[in-house]
């Protein structure tokens, strides 16, 4: 253990971790997260499902994370396998392995989890003794690039359907047959709402060569009518009554988000055209203030956390946000609790909320105008005016903040160089506002500008749009670098190669399964960790499959082209998305 970095990642034993006697339960469920411990433990979904499953007397849920490169090498060199944190059981000994799909750049780590865990990579190669491998999470809304590796996917909210999956599994295994056939289990699962079993569908070719690349492969009609034609996303209707972990695991290692979490809302009332969250989480649901107060008290008593974060796609949209923050502040009165507000809308009301949350601390506030010009903000349907943004900034400076963080995207549909220059102008205007408002404290003014490459995502109106290439991104970024020369303004940007790959995987078809396998075989892993990305190896893997990565990823799709994720029904129709795309073009 002393031979690997941060051994604490691999030992479990944290406060509130649940260790059951595995001989005393009927079903062993592994929650596997395809990234490091620190990232996975920050994920609320893990804590929710861990809690939900361990509340069942017949089930034990244990955790598995992707071991870092040094630990993976140690496991291999010892001829060992990847084991769960709680009972140190090999991943392959579990009945069900649930893998959380939060990010496209985790896909190679999914293969790493399976291989190190001693589970055949391809679902087709798994036998009666292998676990059932299920995927879930936001990326499952286009499961096709991973279709060959999973026995099933769960689309949408997991709290309820996970019980149904466990119940079906137990019913299948205990139906009296000595070795019940795996196909029988898959048929049972496919009958559940929100469950997608890729092997039960014919395959079809899409977009044959029109974009210069070979055909994409995707799910076609269900075989023998054994599965539904459309898989409808699961939605927990009553969020207030939905189970929530009030005794979450408290990691020893510092998680990326090392604090208590309360989920105040799920879904978003807005319809920003670039944003996939709307399709993944709608409709808007929220918890009652009283429920949240009760949960807060229990969580703080059970964890000892010194910081709490109300979670929502946007906290400004919670109807009783001011009351909630007032409560968190008084609960904090003698407990030295600090509140963190990760997401706010750029408006004055949000600044007032932030004042409530950060009583003394005025370190930094973050807002996301997304685009530089009013025209482009109308195009993406996030239509804040320059004046609104500047008024918000002024309010923040006057309330005592000296550092603002602004998020923008480059590569939005219909964007011109003029729109990129508008980012500079807006940022400068914010800086001028800061200088005026801060007066004698202007020396402390700091603006951090974060620029991301826009990635068209499935189930959004921009799903047909082209993604700009890394070269185009660099050129547009160059405009910002040339025009933003101030030591008060710090410019940061994402690695465009990562965005290229993320976009490719996000809109990929089944033909990418083979690419993924080759890339993994060539040593790719932890692609989301900038320094680990091996773009050359990825490009090779694509080339071997007859795909030009750059060309395919940056192609514009005809709006009448069939899409690899059409069988996944998130609740937003193609007609709606098309109408919104048209509106975007007209804006």
């Amino acid at each position, binding site marked *: 253990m002393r031979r690997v970095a941060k*051994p*604490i990642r691999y030992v*479990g*034993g944290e*406060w509130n971790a649940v260790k059951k006697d595995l001989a005393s339960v009927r079903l062993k469920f592994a929650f596997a997260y395809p990234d490091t411990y620190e990232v996975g433990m920050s994920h609320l979904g893990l804590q929710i499902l861990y809690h939900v499953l361990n509340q069942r007397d017949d089930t034990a849920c244990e955790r598995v994370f992707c071991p870092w490169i040094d630990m993976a090498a140690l496991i291999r060199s010892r001829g060992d396998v990847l084991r769960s944190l709680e009972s140190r059981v090999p991943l392959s000994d579990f009945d069900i392995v649930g893998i959380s799909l939060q990010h496209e750049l985790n896909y190679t780590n999914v293969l790493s989890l399976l291989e190190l865990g001693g589970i055949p990579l391809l679902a087709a190669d798994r036998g009666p003794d292998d676990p059932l491998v299920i995927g879930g999470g936001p990326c499952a809304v286009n499961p096709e690039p991973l279709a060959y590796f999973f026995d099933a996917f769960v689309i949408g909210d997991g709290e309820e359907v996970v019980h149904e999956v466990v119940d079906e599994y137990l019913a299948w295994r205990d139906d009296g047959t000595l070795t019940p056939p795996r196909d029988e289990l898959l048929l049972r699962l496919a009958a559940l709402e929100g469950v997608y079993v890729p092997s039960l569908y014919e395959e079809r070719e899409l977009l044959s060569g029109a974009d210069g690349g070979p055909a994409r492969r995707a799910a076609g009609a269900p075989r023998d009518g054994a599965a539904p034609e459309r898989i409808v996303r699961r939605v927990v209707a009553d969020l207030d009554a939905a189970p929530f972990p009030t005794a979450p695991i408290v990691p*020893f290692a510092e998680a990326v988000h090392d604090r208590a979490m309360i989920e105040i809302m799920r879904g978003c009332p807005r319809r920003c055209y670039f944003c996939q969250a709307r399709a993944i989480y709608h409709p808007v649901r929220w918890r009652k203030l009283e429920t949240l107060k009760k949960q807060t008290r229990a969580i703080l008593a059970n964890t000892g956390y010194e910081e709490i974060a109300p979670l929502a796609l946007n906290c400004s949209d919670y109807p009783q946000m001011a009351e909630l923050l007032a409560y968190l502040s008084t609960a904090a009165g003698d407990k030295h609790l600090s509140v963190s507000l990760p997401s706010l809308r750029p408006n004055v009301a949000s600044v007032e909320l932030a004042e409530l949350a950060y009583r*003394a601390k005025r370190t930094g506030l973050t807002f996301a105008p997304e685009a530089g010009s009013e025209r482009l903000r109308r195009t993406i349907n996030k239509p804040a005016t320059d004046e609104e943004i500047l008024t918000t900034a002024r309010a923040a400076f006057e309330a005592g903040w000296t550092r603002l963080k602004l998020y923008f995207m480059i590569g939005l549909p219909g964007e011109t160089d003029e729109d990129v220059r508008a980012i500079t102008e807006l940022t400068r205007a914010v800086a001028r506002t800061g200088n005026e408002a801060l007066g004698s404290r202007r020396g402390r003014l700091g603006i951090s500008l974060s620029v991301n490459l826009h990635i068209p995502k499935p189930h959004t109106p921009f799903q047909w749009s082209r993604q700009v290439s890394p070269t185009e991104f660099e050129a547009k970024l160059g405009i910002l670098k040339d025009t933003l020369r101030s030591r008060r303004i710090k410019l940061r940007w994402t690695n465009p190669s990562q965005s290229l790959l993320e976009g490719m995987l996000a809109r990929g078809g089944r033909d990418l399964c083979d690419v993924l396998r080759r890339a993994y075989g060539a040593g790719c892993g932890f692609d989301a960790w900038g320094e680990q990305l091996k773009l050359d190896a990825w490009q090779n893997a694509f080339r071997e499959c007859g795909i030009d990565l750059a060309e395919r990823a940056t192609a514009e799709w005809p709006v009448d082209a069939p899409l690899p994720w059409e069988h996944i029904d998130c609740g937003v129709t193609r007609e709606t998305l098309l109408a919104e795309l048209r509106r975007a073009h007209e804006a």
Partner: protein
Amino acid sequence: MRHRLPPGTRVFAQLKLARYGIGALLSQLEFARALHRAVRRADLPVVYSLGFAPRPRISFASPLPVGVTSDGELVAMQLERSMPSLELARRLRRQLPEGLELVELQVVARSKRALFAGIDLAEYVVDVGYQSAQAEAGEAVCGDAKQSLGERAESAVRQLLNRAEVEVVRRTKKGERTVDIRPAVDRLELCECDSDRFSLRMRVGIAPDAMAKPAEVIAALAADLGELEVLHIHRVALLASRRPRSQMRA
């Protein structure tokens, strides 16, 4: 209670903790955080610092390196008011995570500067592996390796203690430099010996001006004995080389 204390004096809970298993794998920061959260769960009346990001006033005598187990970690936390030691200990014990154990807790009143005053030594038991290749090539063939290794280790220890200077290479963030650890080695003795491993009990300095790490002492012995592998380090206690001034009960 507080008004009766001499000026500059505050109430502290002084703790001795054991760290085993998971507790030994924690970095200093992780240990501090785990303890802080346990204190919050136990609802102990700890004093917090003022300012934007209030921190609990919990201090540590000496950080424990990752992988080292211990029976004697000394921690002090400032309290808002005096409380019975037993009550505090009972509440904290229930909230400590696996791998951290409360050995002792007493409530004292003293000046902040006197908290860990005089704590300048650490006692360790170090298990050392003797390279099997050498054992096989040498005495092991004759069948009395056990005795030979014992004798050789004994003599290496004696020699080290007899030297006026013991130079080892110390790796720091700034690079490597040679240091003399002899002044910081207070005691060193062989306590157990097997055919391929032995244990040493040592008392070494932890103060910045006279400090020696257990691995450095082993490295110095390896100069005589050939390659040695540190198998396990256990901190027995943190000590003062001089008798501390008498404590005041709060």
